[in-house]
């Protein structure tokens, strides 16, 4: 697995952005950028190539589910894997995310082990597709 892949972390809480960033660092991934909602995430995504998006759902401005749909609807972005890390835990929301093309779904609060496990599965798919 290429540890230099570029990852965009999207969350309106700076604490959670830092948590995800630090846990990625613990796993050896240091090439990250941050955005605080779906709108600013799309700006970042269009600026430069990203290999993975890790996003919250519940954010002011554009929500994570709408960011996912926008990514899947954009020809230049649609292949980027998206991992939702969210406190939204209703069955219908998980189904909506799956139907919108999410690649993984982590429910907050999560452990470092759970996030590492889900990231591992997403990275496996990235590796297999490469």
């Amino acid at each position, binding site marked *: 697995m290429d540890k230099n892949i570029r990852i965009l972390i999207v*969350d309106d*809480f*700076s*604490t*959670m952005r*830092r*948590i995800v960033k*630090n*846990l990625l660092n*613990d796993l050896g991934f240091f090439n990250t950028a941050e955005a605080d909602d779906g709108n600013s995430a799309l700006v970042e995504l269009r600026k430069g190539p990203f290999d993975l998006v890790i996003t919250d*759902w*519940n*954010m*002011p401005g554009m*929500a*994570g*589910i*709408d960011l996912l749909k926008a990514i899947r609807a954009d020809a230049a972005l649609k292949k980027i894997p998206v991992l939702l890390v*969210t*406190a*939204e*835990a*209703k*069955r219908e*929301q*998980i*189904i909506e995310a*799956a*139907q919108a093309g*999410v*690649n*993984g*779904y*982590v*429910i*907050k*609060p*999560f*452990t*470092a*082990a*759970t*996030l*590492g496990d889900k990231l591992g599965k997403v990275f496996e798919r990235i590796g297999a597709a490469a």
Partner: protein
Amino acid sequence: MSVAAATDARRGMNVAAALPETDDRQAVIGCLRSALAALEADERVQWRSTIDELIQWRTQPLVQGLARLARELEQALGGCGVGGGSLPAQVSGSSPLPEACARLEHVVQVSEDASHHTMDLIQECGVLLGTLPGAAAQEQAATVAAIRSRLSEMTAAQGYQDLTGQIIRRVVVLVSAVHAGLGDLAGDDRPLQLSGLGPSTAGHGPSLAGIDAPATSQDDANQLLSSLGL
């Protein structure tokens, strides 16, 4: 909010069930007779006019009481918005409601600062671990790895700040929406609009036991996603 305004509102809400005061009684009787006569004569304009008059008599005290309540609540809630982390200067000595909102925002800010400080210390511990003499040795490597694993879990545990912050901000947004709705009511007699709390896709935040539907566990989510082919 004054006792008088609350009493006015209660009086307004009770008026639907109460008999009219003596002064109003003759006017209401006249109105009812006029409505009956219009109905019997099939005079629609007159019928509608007298019925409207009755409805106005019935609802006017309620509307007046609510409008007065709304004005007073608007004053009490003035300046209670979302965002920002510091206590506003006008809080001291002001009414308790904006102070409560500012305190909630302050809790979000203080817990965010504490989480960042904790993560600063966790990162420093990680660096210090790397400086231990003989840390690479076989006998110490397992212990160092175990400590690093626990430091990672301590980092993940700081997620409480995000979860509690989402709940607190949801309450502040709700209070602000009530404020805005009541502000509208103070200006005219439109109904409260409490549904506009953001786009329908914005999410609901963490589920609270006893209040919200039970949250799906990570295991249940994994099974659900597997059944959907993920």
